[in-house]
């Protein structure tokens, strides 16, 4: 039985009123001294008794009327009527045994204790009980089929080991909710065997266990091991630089101490299994430091790096793996107008050369001197303020873009049409002169990767640039206008050609038609344009467990091949996980690889000319290293069923709907009417007898 407005039930306390009056009246009954009871005794006593009984009946009727009124206003409804026709014993339980297998369970003797606690639960099962064992970290799934006998469950439990995942209580509780919801047992019980990490619960999970479900938390964290010093290698940043034209990398590792005591230890850097450097580190209690290793020359191909800390209470998070490759150093070719001063593209080349992510090797050449061979090396070509190369060079340029190269075209005085331009550029109109009142960039696609950097306030304003002249661009339907001038004319247009991208700016990146190079936003804007055009998505040296990796995009990014081809899904990939199991990706299953364990994954194309094996470094989520404790009451309270979630089909309806369907209040009112009529009749009869 549930109530929509249970507060009205408090009104039933008004029943105390007539009872109190009745009792008060009885209290008032005093002793009267009377000369003789001679005559009183002759009056039949039963009549007095009967009167009194009638009074009691009257009192009961009035109380009943009050209770019925309160009941009707509380809007009652019946829940879980299906439970009445179950055939299982009335005290049979549906036990959902949830065992935490996140990597923090490997601390000390937590895992053996968790197993022991789970075994205790299995020992406590009675006839008719059904148990579902599930291990959970960031995900949860039944480890043994529902309804398995205790021996099977015990075998599964004994074979299990902590994984590399992070604790998340919500999926586990949601699984419990699902199991209990489908159960026909009258009683539900959820046993949570965990080390109660606070990081695993954000309190927002919308999990409501069926009403009456007992949530039992078995805490297996030892006393005090939550506060012990625990050093975690949380993340790595790879700083690249060119020393004598040799690409070097300087890994900077962020070390976090989650314990309440300062931690001292060592951090050792190894590349491809070769130990290179060891640093002594001291991290304050609940603090973090960055351990910066000296620059190291990169070996050819993909290098597998590890940073290893001295072992502590939780060894899983003491090794940080990353992948680093030489390919990140990019070349850019700047094509300048023929006959223009050599310094005309100075702003552009200097701005590009300043970049570190990725570092650019920039070469500038005049339009008439560009040879097809010049397009073999770079990943980015910038045609600054001049027409596209024509002839063989133009065709070579078009192929370069189709194969994944990036092209930035800024329109200037010498824009030409035909040739490669037909494929690569939208239609270009005449020059718009705005000498009297300069044009400004008025609107941008703020969510586009190029402009995402300038989205927040005070992080660069493109509108400060004054544009005196620009060329009118007439974008095709497939082109995307990323920025417009204040008169609505397109300022920046993106076109995807094959696997490559073309960005067309309506005004050149020098200070002849505009003062853009003099604005603070110039350098970041150039970098953003270059990154986007060349398809550089940033260093991804490592992933964490639980992430899903699109191997196609990953391969494209780390190999510097630009954007992934549209038909990438048709290519099959072979992925090998750290424990040696192989999986085929691509085609109908997609190219998404679930990263479950820590270590180095390896992916490669099944066929084709690309023989390279791409390593993928996977580390544990450093958030799991935070052993801070959660109050188990938080889980119990958050999952307690307030409005009565439900185990039976009747309860699948929301309470208001159930109440609306049953309309029990109406029957309460009818009963109230009957009681009131009875009360009036009896009261009448009594007062007549009295009169």
């Amino acid at each position, binding site marked *: 039985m549930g109530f929509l407005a249970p507060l009205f039930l408090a009104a039933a306390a008004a029943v105390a009123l007539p009872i109190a009056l009745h009792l008060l009246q009885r209290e008032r009954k005093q002793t*009267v*001294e009377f000369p003789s*009871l*001679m*005559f*009183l005794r*002759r*009056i039949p006593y039963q009549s*007095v008794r009967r*009167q009194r009984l009638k009074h009691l009946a009257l009192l009961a009727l009035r109380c009943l009327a009050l209770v019925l009124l309160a009941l009707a206003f509380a809007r009652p409804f019946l829940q879980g009527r299906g439970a009445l026709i179950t055939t299982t014993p009335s005290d049979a339980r549906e036990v959902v045994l949830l065992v935490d297998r996140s990597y923090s369970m490997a601390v000390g003797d937590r895992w053996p204790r968790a197993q022991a606690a789970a075994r205790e639960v299995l020992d406590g099962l009675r006839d008719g009980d059904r148990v579902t064992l599930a291990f959970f970290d960031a995900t949860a799934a039944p480890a043994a089929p529902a309804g398995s006998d205790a021996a099977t469950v015990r075998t599964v439990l004994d074979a299990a080991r902590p994984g590399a995942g992070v604790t998340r209580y919500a999926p586990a509780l949601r699984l419990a909710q699902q199991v209990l919801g489908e159960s026909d047992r009258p009683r539900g019980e959820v046993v949570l065997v965990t080390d109660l990490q606070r990081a695993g619960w954000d309190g927002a999970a919308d999990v409501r266990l069926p009403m009456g479900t007992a949530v039992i938390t078995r805490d297996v964290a030892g006393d005090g091991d939550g506060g012990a010093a625990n050093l975690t290698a949380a993340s790595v940043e790879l700083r690249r630089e060119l020393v004598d034209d040799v690409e070097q990398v300087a890994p900077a590792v962020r070390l976090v101490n989650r314990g309440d005591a300062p931690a001292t230890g060592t951090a050792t850097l190894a590349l491809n299994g070769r130990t290179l450097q060891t640093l002594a580190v001291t991290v304050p209690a609940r603090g973090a430091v960055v351990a910066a290793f000296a620059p190291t020359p990169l070996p050819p191909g993909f290098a597998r790096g590890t940073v290893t800390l001295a072992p502590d209470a939780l060894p899983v998070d003491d090794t940080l793996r990353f992948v680093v490759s030489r390919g990140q150093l990019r070349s850019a070719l700047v094509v300048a107008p023929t006959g223009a001063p050599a310094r005309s593209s100075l702003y552009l080349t200097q701005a590009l050369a300043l970049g570190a992510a990725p570092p650019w090797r920039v070469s500038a050449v005049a339009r008439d001197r560009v040879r097809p061979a010049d397009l073999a090396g770079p990943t980015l070509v910038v045609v600054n303020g001049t027409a596209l190369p024509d002839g063989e060079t133009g065709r070579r340029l078009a192929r370069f873009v189709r194969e994944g190269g990036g092209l930035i075209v800024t329109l200037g005085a010498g824009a030409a049409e035909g040739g490669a331009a037909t494929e690569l550029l939208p239609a270009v109109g005449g020059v718009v002169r705005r000498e009297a009142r300069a044009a400004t960039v008025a609107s941008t696609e703020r969510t586009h990767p190029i402009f995402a950097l300038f989205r927040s306030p005070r992080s660069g304003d493109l509108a400060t640039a004054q544009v005196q002249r620009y060329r009118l661009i007439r974008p095709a339907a497939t082109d995307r206008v990323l920025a417009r001038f204040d008169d609505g004319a397109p300022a920046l247009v993106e076109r995807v050609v094959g696997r490559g991208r073309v960005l067309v700016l309506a005004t050149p990146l020098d200070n002849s038609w505009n003062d853009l190079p003099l604005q603070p936003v110039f350098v970041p804007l150039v970098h953003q344009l270059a990154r986007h055009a060349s398809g550089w998505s940033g260093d991804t040296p490592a992933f964490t467990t639980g992430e899903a990796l699109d191997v196609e995009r990953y391969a494209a990014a780390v190999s510097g091949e630009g954007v992934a081809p549209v038909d990438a899904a048709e290519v099959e990939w072979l992925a090998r996980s750290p424990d040696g199991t192989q999986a085929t990706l691509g085609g109908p299953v997609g190219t998404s690889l679930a990263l479950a364990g820590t270590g180095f994954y390896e992916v490669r194309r099944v066929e084709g000319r690309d023989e390279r094996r791409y390593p993928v470094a996977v580390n544990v989520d450093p958030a799991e290293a935070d052993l801070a404790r959660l109050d188990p009451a938080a889980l119990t309270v958050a999952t307690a069923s307030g409005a009565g979630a439900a185990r039976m089909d009747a309860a699948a309806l929301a309470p208001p709907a159930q109440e609306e369907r049953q309309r029990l209040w109406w029957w309460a009112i009818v009963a109230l009417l009957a009681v009131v009529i009875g009360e009036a009749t009896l009261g009448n009869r009594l007062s007549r007898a009295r009169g």
Partner: protein
Amino acid sequence: MTAAARPTPAAGARFLDPAVLARIGNLELLARTVVEGFITGLHRSAHFGVSTDFAEHRPYTPGDDVRHVDWRLWARTDRYHVKEYEAETNAACTVLLDVSRSMRFASGGRVSKLDYARYLSACLLYFAQRQRDRVGLVTFDAEIRTYVPPSGRHLPIALHAIDQAEAGGAGDLARPLTQVAERLRRRGIVALVSDLYEEPQVVRDVVHRLRGAGSDVIVFHVLDAAEREFPYDGPARFEDLESAEHMPVVPEYLREQYRELVAAHIAALGTLLGEGGVDYRLLDTSRPLDEALFDFLTARQRMARVR
């Protein structure tokens, strides 16, 4: 003085309210106040009780009081004759005062039944003394408590006994009054003052036993108004003053039946006692004492006609 000359109560003096009388501490003073006022109202000789009725003449013999010589007869016959009068009755007047615990009852600020009975007894005795009657007193509950035998000089003792009387134990009429009947050997007036919580037949039997000695019996039935009207409200526990028994009572539902029972009881007493030639008078403790005194006077006169 004859019965025809009996004054109506309305013509009587302003009798004081019993509640006012209660303030007079001295019983004799109280009785005198009541009785003298009563007699003044009658406009009669103070020597009311002495018989002056002429019986016969007899010849004077030396030694006779010359004041009794009938001088008118001497003038007619020239012989000395002495007047002879009817003998003085000198009746014995005994008051039987019920002092059982039920007499303690009082309601609504009225005097208790016992106090009322005491005033009444004092007045009766004083009045009788004024008539030169011999006065006696018996107080009783289930036993005889005090016994003052009738005597011309016993008024102070009787008044003192009345003064000292207190409501005692449980009441019983038959036993003590049978004993009294055995002791009253001479004829006289017997006034029974009681609340008569007894079956009417029992009362009749007892009273007849008293009459058996030749006495004239007056029964004063003293009741508080509450005993007849039953004016209680709300359920209450009623306690019997004599037996201390309890009984839960809802007066609203019992009142009518109770009134009927009490009325039937009074009617039965009146009928049964009247049939036996006994004067029965119901007295309400809120009413003045005159009615009782008139009844007593009537009985006294009846006695006076008896030689």
